[in-house]
């Protein structure tokens, strides 16, 4: 687009955009669809060894490990112990092996002798709280306030109890959220490409490419600046890939030892047992409402199931205005691996319980489900978003508006709602370089990884807009620590951290190019105009140059500028509302989501197509959380019994309904916000509410599987 403002970079009016804010197909789409994209797990280099972890098969143990038997197998090149002493959960890695083939590595791993003495353990919430239960670890009691022993709860308990007494209608319920897994198709791990000498390249599956050299340098015995990390494509992260994990560290240690490249990625079972889960929770809630719909009181007692970790911080009453609330926030430890960040850590869990409570209160006083939400949410963004999703889902024509269906007959349909918030702002630290070559080529470089969200495409779109070109005219270079600094992709910060750098670099490059072209076009630099693949003087649009001819006037080294983060180009504060329409089969308990609608604000949307993909993906993960997914721990054996993609049920194509993702176009902020997290929050609550709305069965335990629906229906009749 023509960019005549020569001052501070700005995104410009939306109406003027030619590339940004327009649906632009993912540049890596064709190679991904054709299977040509090389993920780190696919990468092979000459002389490479395959690594395999040796994992302890019990929940808690004292152990010793003897790796020598593995070395007796021909083709096993190295076997190392990784730790000594004790383990706290099943699947913890204690040794590693590398061999000439994956099969020999497996044979080697199985030959390692682990002598262990099992210790008492707890792997479920119930057993962790039982009197006399074994202690998970010596560091903390199994059940302890997340804020430390002085944490007596948030809010005024007496005032809350008084407000409950004064309420016209009170509900009490316990909500149980199962542990969900990230279930990345590409498991955790990396290829440490080291052949001796003083340099190495790490091909990692990571959300923080720039964090890898510092982590890998130690085990490789190299200087950090001599370790490069490359992340060409990512097979999923969702919050689980912020470190190089034990597989990565072991690969580096073994590569350093033998002077050969080692590739080591988790197998699927290890991925489930040790490398990522969204914490579960148990929330006991009592809440009261006035006849006019104002929520007066909420008492919540929350246990976060973060395994050996504490779980995330989000608490009730989530984002609703509640006059008086009191919250107890506990960690309930078990002998399972720690939970990790996963798309809005803690939020979907509390949102599910809160949205359920709001519906329960609404039905209690006969209020409309949309109106009670607006009554207790002050930001006008929510009001317009709720109205919009209600319209899109067909709320006004729906038959169960103030009372749920009765659960009789063969089939029932219902609607539910939820809302969410998130920050989504960026931060400083990244940098970008935009380069124009004399042959007309444009390269846009930033080292950041693309988690699959579409960053690569943005990296091309931003300079394309600046130079009046198309995204396909720009070569994006990403995922490499030899490029300018990226950021870690967590908390929805990526777009708001890198887009300003790219804008700044593009802007500076354009100004420099305009300066150069002023003499060629015989006009002032400020009048040099870039549009539709041409460059011309503002006053003489007919006598310009093609982009290519303009570039040919550059010196041999071309033209390049770097850009840094500019806070004004981004902001934070995302709001969203979602609605779900479900069908409940009253004979079988099957729930089918028929349609989901999301209305989401996130400032200026740079690429609406990949934005919608983000929102759709978040709704699909919400469907998984609501209806299908959940880690199942065997209480007596101490193991996860469904640690595979057959028994752990991710939604497939038949589970995905009509998804409608709508940009809230009343948000006119001229700054970018990330959208990774916010749409992943309200879906599960909306679906649970829709099930109740359909048939009157209030199910407070996720996932809502057919057995639970049948049980709840039986209680109704």
């Amino acid at each position, binding site marked *: 687009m023509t960019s005549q403002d020569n001052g501070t970079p700005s995104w410009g009016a939306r109406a003027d955009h030619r590339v940004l804010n327009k649906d632009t197909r993912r540049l890596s789409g064709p190679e991904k669809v054709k299977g040509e994209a090389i993920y780190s797990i696919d990468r092979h280099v000459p002389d490479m060894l395959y690594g395999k972890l040796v994992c302890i098969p019990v929940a808690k143990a004292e152990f010793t490990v003897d790796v020598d038997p593995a070395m007796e197998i021909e083709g096993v090149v190295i076997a190392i112990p990784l730790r000594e002493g004790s383990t706290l959960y099943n699947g913890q890695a204690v040794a590693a092996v590398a061999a000439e083939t994956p099969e020999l590595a497996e044979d080697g791993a199985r030959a390692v002798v682990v002598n262990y003495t099992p210790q008492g353990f707890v792997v479920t919430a119930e057993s962790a709280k039982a009197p006399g239960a074994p202690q998970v670890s010596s560091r903390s009691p199994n059940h302890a306030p997340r804020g430390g022993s002085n944490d007596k709860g948030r809010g005024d308990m007496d005032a809350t109890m008084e407000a409950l007494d004064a309420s016209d209608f009170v509900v009490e319920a316990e909500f149980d959220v199962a542990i969900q897994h990230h279930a990345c198709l590409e498991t955790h791990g990396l290829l440490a490409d080291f052949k001796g000498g003083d340099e190495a390249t790490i091909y990692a599956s990571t959300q923080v490419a720039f964090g890898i050299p510092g982590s890998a340098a130690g085990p490789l015995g190299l200087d950090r600046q001599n370790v490069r990390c490359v992340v060409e494509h990512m097979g999923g992260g969702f919050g689980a890939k912020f470190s190089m994990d034990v597989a990565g560290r072991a690969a580096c240690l073994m590569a350093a030892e033998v002077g050969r490249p080692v590739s080591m990625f988790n197998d699927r079972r290890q991925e489930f047992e040790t490398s990522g889960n969204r914490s579960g929770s148990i929330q006991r809630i009592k809440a009261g409402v006035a006849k006019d719909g104002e929520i007066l009181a909420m008492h919540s007692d929350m246990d976060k199931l973060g395994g050996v970790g504490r779980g995330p911080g989000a608490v009730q009453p989530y984002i609703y205005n509640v006059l008086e609330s009191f919250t107890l926030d506990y960690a309930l430890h078990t002998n399972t691996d720690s939970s990790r960040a996963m798309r809005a850590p803690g939020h979907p869990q509390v949102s599910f319980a809160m949205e359920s409570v709001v519906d329960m209160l609404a039905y209690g006083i006969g209020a409309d489900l949309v109106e009670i939400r607006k009554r207790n949410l002050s930001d006008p963004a929510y009001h317009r978003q709720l109205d919009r999703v209600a319209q899109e889902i067909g709320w006004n024509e729906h038959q169960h508006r103030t009372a749920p269906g009765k659960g009789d007959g063969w089939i029932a349909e219902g609607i539910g709602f939820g809302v969410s918030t998130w920050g989504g702002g960026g931060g400083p630290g990244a940098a970008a370089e935009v380069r124009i070559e004399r042959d007309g080529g444009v390269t846009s470089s930033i080292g950041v990884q693309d988690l699959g969200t579409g960053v690569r495409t943005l990296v091309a779109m931003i300079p394309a807009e600046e130079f009046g070109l198309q995204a396909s005219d720009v070569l994006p270079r990403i995922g490499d620590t030899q490029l300018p600094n990226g950021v870690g992709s967590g908390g929805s910060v990526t777009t708001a951290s890198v887009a300003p750098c790219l804008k700044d670099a593009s802007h500076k490059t354009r100004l420099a190019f305009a300066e150069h072209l002023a003499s060629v076009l015989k006009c002032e630099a400020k009048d040099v105009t870039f549009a539709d693949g041409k460059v011309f003087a503002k006053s003489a649009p007919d006598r310009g140059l093609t982009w290519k001819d303009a570039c040919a006037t550059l010196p041999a080294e071309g033209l390049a500028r770097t850009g840094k983060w500019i806070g004004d180009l981004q902001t934070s504060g995302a709001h969203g509302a979602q609605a779900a329409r479900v069908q409940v089969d009253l004979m079988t308990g099957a729930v*089918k989501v028929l349609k989901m609608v999301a209305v989401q604000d996130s400032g200026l949307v740079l690429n609406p197509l990949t934005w919608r993909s983000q929102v759709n993906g978040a709704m699909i993960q919400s469907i998984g959380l609501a209806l*299908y997914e959940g880690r199942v721990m*065997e209480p007596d054996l101490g193991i996860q*019994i469904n640690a595979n993609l057959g028994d752990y*049920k991710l*939604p497939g194509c*038949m589970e995905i309904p009509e998804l409608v993702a709508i940009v809230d176009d009343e948000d006119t902020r001229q700054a970018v916000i990330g959208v990774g997290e916010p749409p992943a929050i309200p879906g599960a609550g909306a679906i649970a509410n829709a099930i109740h709305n359909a048939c009157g069965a209030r199910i407070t335990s996720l996932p809502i599987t057919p057995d639970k629906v*049948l049980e709840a229906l039986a209680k109704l009749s």
Partner: protein
Amino acid sequence: MKSFELARPTSLDEAIDLLPKGRGPAEIDDARPLAGGQDILTEMKDYLITPKRLVDLAGVAGLDAYQSAPDLVLGSLTRLARIAADPQIALHHRALSIAAESVASVQIRNQATLGGNLCQRPRCWYYRNESVPCIKKGGAECFAESGLNKYNAIFGGGPSYIVHPSDCATALVLLDATVTKRGPRGESRMPLEQFFTLPSEGSVVRENVLKANEILVQVEVPAPKPGWTSTYLKFKERESFDFAMSAVALSARIEGDTIAEARMVLGAVAPIPWRAGEAESFLAGKPNTHATWKEAAEIALAQAEPLEHNGYKVPLTKGLIQKALRELSGGESK
């Protein structure tokens, strides 16, 4: 997966000769037949079994019979995708057509064989976990009996509580199929219903009468009797691809407003396809009404003995029975 020898015989006798001679569990691990490989390779990758030799049946003559109408002959190497796509089977043996189509995913159906589907091992998550020494793997205990038994049996359990995972088995028992097997002593035929064994009857580490040195040759299904139609309702926890949580194979002859005769086999509720004989007797000659469907469902489940976590299978299966009867009466199934 542990290394193994791949034998590629061309005749049945040669194949049988490559299979174990003895009967003990140790000998069974010497060699196993390989058909489509969709289950056995998974078992090997998960180290549930570590056979020294796989006997590939792909090149063996005599296992590829295929006659589709109306008397059905299906060699054991018949791919499930072929059964699912055959319009003659859909017309005459509808329950089998639906059952074959319901198995797993397109990719698996393209590779999986009928013989392999009938002989596949249980899906019980204790059995499938290498580190659990369950009774099906020669251990002393059925961990599902008092453990996490959501997916286990409500009929016919003990000492193992697995459910039979095959959709085709349920449909073929409904359709009165006969199976032919061959071993060192030659060929024998038997009703498919008798092929499957309860853990309390046969060996607890097997699900059928097939010995380690026998090969399933083919399945035959008689042409349907005039006026009979059939269906198969499979309930999956995840529709995209999954094993059954419960299934109903139903055939009936409906005359006007009366159910003249019916046959019913339940799937995923017992270690074998579970014939609902009392419900069949009840339905004969009854008026074709929702009240009759409900009563038939009650009768079919009356003897169910749910475990701690699978009580839902009782109302679920009752619901499926009513839906199946409704479907054969011209109503919707879903």
